[in-house]
């Protein structure tokens, strides 16, 4: 790589460190895909790939997966983009609470949200279905949540938070005069949104779409609760079947790794396409330092409708599942609400959870959320900066690498890291400790943070940084003193969301945790796996309360990230 005046050595080193962290487990995944049996002790062969080809998941599964992923992505974006715009630029009522509420949605584990929908829309016992049947005298229920449509609905709702977060900083940072020019040319607010705001936000929207699509492609919780019972399989549930319900009892990690490798390759192709977008959109730098006049737009007569729609979304995505969770947490076993049910309300579930928990999980989770978000933001900023700003020829490769962990199914990623830690336990004794979980979180979430930061750094005109360099500051100083303050909303936002993600992450923690490194959400997972849904609900309610306390104490931070003008 030719010497690039725009790159500082420190930034390079940090981003390289991040890349190494990411590459190691990915390479381990590929390596594991060539083993049969226990990683490290089995034979090496192409057998897994052979099985993949000769005994594939089947056309139906792939088809289902694409329909599911594309549809829920579209649904999530259709909700998230206007919501982000409204929060960033208008006088939407309660707009300061939106980030807060979205954070709450993120914290509730996906399988419990899906469970909530089962209780509402199951054809046999769903509360809403029953009400409708009685009201209209129907024989068969109107809605069946155990369907592809039901899966798309539930998943679309729960994908809004990540999409919102990637898109919000871009709307916040947009130069207001571009919109104002449109109004003064006579265009209505709606037309301005579609002809000016939306196209200018397109790079961020594409980034969000790709990220959400890859998430939806590999997501597990909704398909396993809503699709599996009706034998509707998608990639993740099929993988789950292959891995956990194999003959001879051993999970087939090698096969899962083979599938994971294929998905990685597919996502590289996607990332290449995305990086072309990145190049195109360099022209869309909209923060020029000439002073951002930020004026919130009055929604006028649209205000009630907008507020109503936002409330509807939160009712569906947060309100109903929470109500179901709370109800579930107070009953001894699952019955529909009835007089009898209310007579049997009990606190036993909470007591059981309390006796299981102890302080250790609290401490472990506390450690995680203290260190992981900061590490992720630092590394992701370095990587995004190199990708967006530097002139290295390989910078798009770097971006693709940073993107890859999202594409690897969580189970596979966890196994690779587990195995690497086991191998290196003499040099780096973190196997079985909370630090291993922290490490895998960092690896997994760098890809999320870089999506958001790419878009945010793009928006800052290079003039501002060049001015810093010409004044004699090193590239690192410019990054610290010029870019970082301008990036503040995006940085704080990333930090906040990674904190929530790390707080509630469970799939990988389960694989890697040991007695001493149990974190809070693993408890919920364990209970849910034993179908102790009532105790799982109680545990989730407690988790949500802790998250609530956490977020209230950070509300100033949250307000900062959703208001225009940053500091």
């Amino acid at each position: 790589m030719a010497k690039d005046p725009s790159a500082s050595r420190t930034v390079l080193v940090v981003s390289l460190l991040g890349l190494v962290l990411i590459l190691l487990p990915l390479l381990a995944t590929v390596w594991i895909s060539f083993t049969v049996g226990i990683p490290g002790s089995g034979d090496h062969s192409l057998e897994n790939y052979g099985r993949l080809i000769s005994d594939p998941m089947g056309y139906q599964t792939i088809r289902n997966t694409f329909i599911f992923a594309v549809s829920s992505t579209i649904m999530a974006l259709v909700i998230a983009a206007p919501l982000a715009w409204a929060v960033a630029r208008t006088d939407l009522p309660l707009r300061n609470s939106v980030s807060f509420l979205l954070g709450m949605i993120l914290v509730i584990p996906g399988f419990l949200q899906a469970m909530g929908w089962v209780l509402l829309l199951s054809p046999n016992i769903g509360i809403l279905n029953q009400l409708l049947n009685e009201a209209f005298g129907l024989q068969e229920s109107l809605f069946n949540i155990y369907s592809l449509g039901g899966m798309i609905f539930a998943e679309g709702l729960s994908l809004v938070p990540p999409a919102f977060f990637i898109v919000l900083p871009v709307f916040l940072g947009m130069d207001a005069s571009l919109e104002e020019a449109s109004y003064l040319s006579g265009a209505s607010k709606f037309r301005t949104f579609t002809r000016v705001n939306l196209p200018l936000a397109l790079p961020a929207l594409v980034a969000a779409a790709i990220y959400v699509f890859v998430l939806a492609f590999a997501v597990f919780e909704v398909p396993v609760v809503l699709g599996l019972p009706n034998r509707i399989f998608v990639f993740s549930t099929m993988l789950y079947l292959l891995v956990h319900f194999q003959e001879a009892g051993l999970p087939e990690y090698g096969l899962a790794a083979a599938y994971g490798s294929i998905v990685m390759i597919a996502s590289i192709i996607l990332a290449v396409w995305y990086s072309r977008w990145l190049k195109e959109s360099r022209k869309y730098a909209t923060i020029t330092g000439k002073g951002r006049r930020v004026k919130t737009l009055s929604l006028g007569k649209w205000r009630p409708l907008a507020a109503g729609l936002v409330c509807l979304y939160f009712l569906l995505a947060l309100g109903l599942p929470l109500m179901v969770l709370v109800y579930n947490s107070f009953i001894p076993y699952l019955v529909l609400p009835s007089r009898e049910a209310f007579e049997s309300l009990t606190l036993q579930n909470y007591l059981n959870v309390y006796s299981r928990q102890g302080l250790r999980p609290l401490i472990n989770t506390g450690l995680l959320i203290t260190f992981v978000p900061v590490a992720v933001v630092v590394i992701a900023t370095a990587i995004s900066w190199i990708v967006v700003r530097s002139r290295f020829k390989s910078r798009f490769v770097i971006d693709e690498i940073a993107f890859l962990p999202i594409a690897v199914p969580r189970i596979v990623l966890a196994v690779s890291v587990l195995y690497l830690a086991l191998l290196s336990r003499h040099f780096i004794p973190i196997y079985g400790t909370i630090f291993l979980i922290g490490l895998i979180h960092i690896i997994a979430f760098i890809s999320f943070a870089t999506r958001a930061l790419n878009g945010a750094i793009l928006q800052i005109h290079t003039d501002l940084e060049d001015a810093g360099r010409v004044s004699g500051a090193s590239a690192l100083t410019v990054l610290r003193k010029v870019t970082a303050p301008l990036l503040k909303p995006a940085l704080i936002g990333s930090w906040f969301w990674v904190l929530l993600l790390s707080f509630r992450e469970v799939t990988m923690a389960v694989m890697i945790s040991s007695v001493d490194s149990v974190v809070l959400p693993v408890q919920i997972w364990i209970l849910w796996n034993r179908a102790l849904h009532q105790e799982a609900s109680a545990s989730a309610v407690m988790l949500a309360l802790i998250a609530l306390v956490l977020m209230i104490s950070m509300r100033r931070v949250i307000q900062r990230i959703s208001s225009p003008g940053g500091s």
Partner: protein
Amino acid sequence: MLKIVNLTKEFEIPGGRILAVRNLNLSVEQGQFFVLLGPSGCGKSSLLRCIAGLESIDEGDIYLGDRLLSSGEKRVFVDPEDRELAMVFQSYAVWPHMTVFENIAFPLTEAKTRSCSSDQVAKRVKDIMDLVRLTGFERYKTATLSGGQQQRVALARALIREPKLLLMDEPLSNLDAKLREEMRDEIKELTQRLGVTTLHVTHDQTEAMALADVLAVMSNGQILQIGDPETLYRKPSNRIVAEFLGRTNWVAGTMEADSTSVTEIGRMQSSVFAKFEIGSRVSVGFRPEWIGLRDEGESGPDRFPGIIQARTFLGDSVVYWVSVGQKRLMVKSTASNFSSTSPVTVTIPLERCVVFRDTE
């Protein structure tokens, strides 16, 4: 055309409120080119944004023709997209994701009241592009244009709808000197030709005086003086206006006798001192280019001896800094033969001076 009555606008900032515009009254006649001149922070941009509907107002009324656009007390507010005005922004605000054609055509194709067929649109865009001398640039992406070209796109976009009022927010401040002059002349010529009523905001006094039919100087949210440029330049109503329209030499003095003042550079006697009482303190102001320079010679009522301290060659003129009495005067002269440390005599046309009571 535009009538502003008792306009007040305040902003909330951390720590309190600031009054950006206070009790402002202003009228712009049909076809006038009205320039609002003032330093940064004087409230001129806020005023413009209030007129455009990008800000709400606290008190007062804004009328465009017979139409009430904004009113504080009557709680009227017309959305910016319904105001039938046009605006050229300081940053031009041309959309980077659209071509030149699309940018200019936008008010015709996207406005709420669209009434043109696409043929008509194409013709009107072509006409206006010819007018701003951008012919042939239709398909260019605006991000590839130079500052001057982007500005013309912004102008074309503003003019294509034949707006009732054209607002310009310091559009020339980002251009280099030569381009600025060219564009300045073009804008004046264009608006005159089309008969567009224009309200132009700037902090540059040369630009203001060159463009204005009517000039208003604004400071601290209020208008200090309105009139034609020449009057304001020659007869500013207070010190701030004077300073804002050009460099001024100020000399402090005390009235000694009727029409006579003892100043820092010597005794001055003139009818301009007539209305000031004996004993009062005054400030006398005169423009650098009014001062004459002669070789050392006799003094007189309008002659004062001095020594040249410094000399700056400007091309079409020379600026001398002359030490006269207790003051250092700035003199702008076409004579270039004086050099540093030469003793000279400065002649000051007293009857042209402006005199203000010293309020310190």
